[in-house]
């Protein structure tokens, strides 16, 4: 789903919580993952904390200005598709 949306201007950041770099790279290696993955930081960059996230997966959909459009807890593919369509993306 991602490559097509990326062309339409949707960006993606996957924030990993708690795994080390080796585990993540091992996980990603054979998957042809094209989207950026980062590791949750500390202090100002403890993203999970500042975004109130403690259940996984949680997804935030932001608009181009970085404002929260929608939030998804768990695997909510239908909800996410609906929100993306509402933002004008073609699925």
């Amino acid at each position, binding site marked *: 789903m991602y490559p097509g949306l990326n062309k339409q201007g949707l960006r993606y950041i996957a924030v990993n919580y708690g795994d080390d770099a080796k585990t993540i790279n091992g996980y990603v290696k054979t998957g042809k993952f094209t989207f950026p993955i980062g590791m949750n930081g500390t202090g100002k960059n403890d993203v999970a904390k500042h975004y109130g996230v403690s259940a996984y997966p949680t997804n935030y959909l932001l608009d181009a200005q970085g404002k929260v459009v929608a939030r998804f*807890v768990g695997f909510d593919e239908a909800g996410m598709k609906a929100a993306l369509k509402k933002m004008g993306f073609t699925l």
Partner: protein
Amino acid sequence: MIACLVTLPLIFLPQGGTEEAKQIVAAWRQKVSAAKTISGVADAKSERPTDRMVFRLAKPDLFSLKSPGYEMYSDGSRIVMYTVDQKQYMVLPAGIKEQMGTMLPGLAPFFGSKVPLTEKQLGMGWFRGAPSAELTYSYGTTGTLTLYIDKATSLPLAAVTKFGERSVTMAYSDLKLDEPMSAESFKWTPPEGVTEAQMGGGTDDYEKNLLKVGAKAPDFTIKSPKGGDLNLEKSLKGSKGMLVNFWFYG
């Protein structure tokens, strides 16, 4: 070797077995949904060494799952997730129960949930030498989930998820239905030195802790596991939107 066993039957897939496959799938749904308890083992094989998940499930809402990275317990009043390495546990939103069918797709009927995917293909096949119904669901636009239901027992043999080049085989073994399980056996108390992770609020208040719709998402700079930094504001430049996903592998 295992990969060979999985792929070979595809080449020799018999034609016209759909009716038989339908019956096996119907028997699986019936048998698994009627069970009062289920215990067993799910071995997930991907590029990491096998992750073994030992599970016990009892209706209506008791379960325990133990894997090397994390453990989950539901004692009927709350669901906790214990991350062993981090010596922490957290109380999960009650809604996580709805995800159980996704975590153990071969047992989805037990949770009263359909596999929340679109059925794509059904036929007869084999899994590791056992004749089975092979039920494939589409998953996203490119992924598939294939369930192998044992012809002999109507129980799931495996769930194979394919996403791009990535493939994860979760093989079920040692499945036992309707063994007596006491509610007491699902109680979990944190081991010595294990603390509750701060999530403020509580189970059903989870969403209250999230950023509000309409709020500006705070900027951050985090490290990529491959080196380099990822910055939110920078990534937003020239975009039409952004999906920020939080995940962990365990």
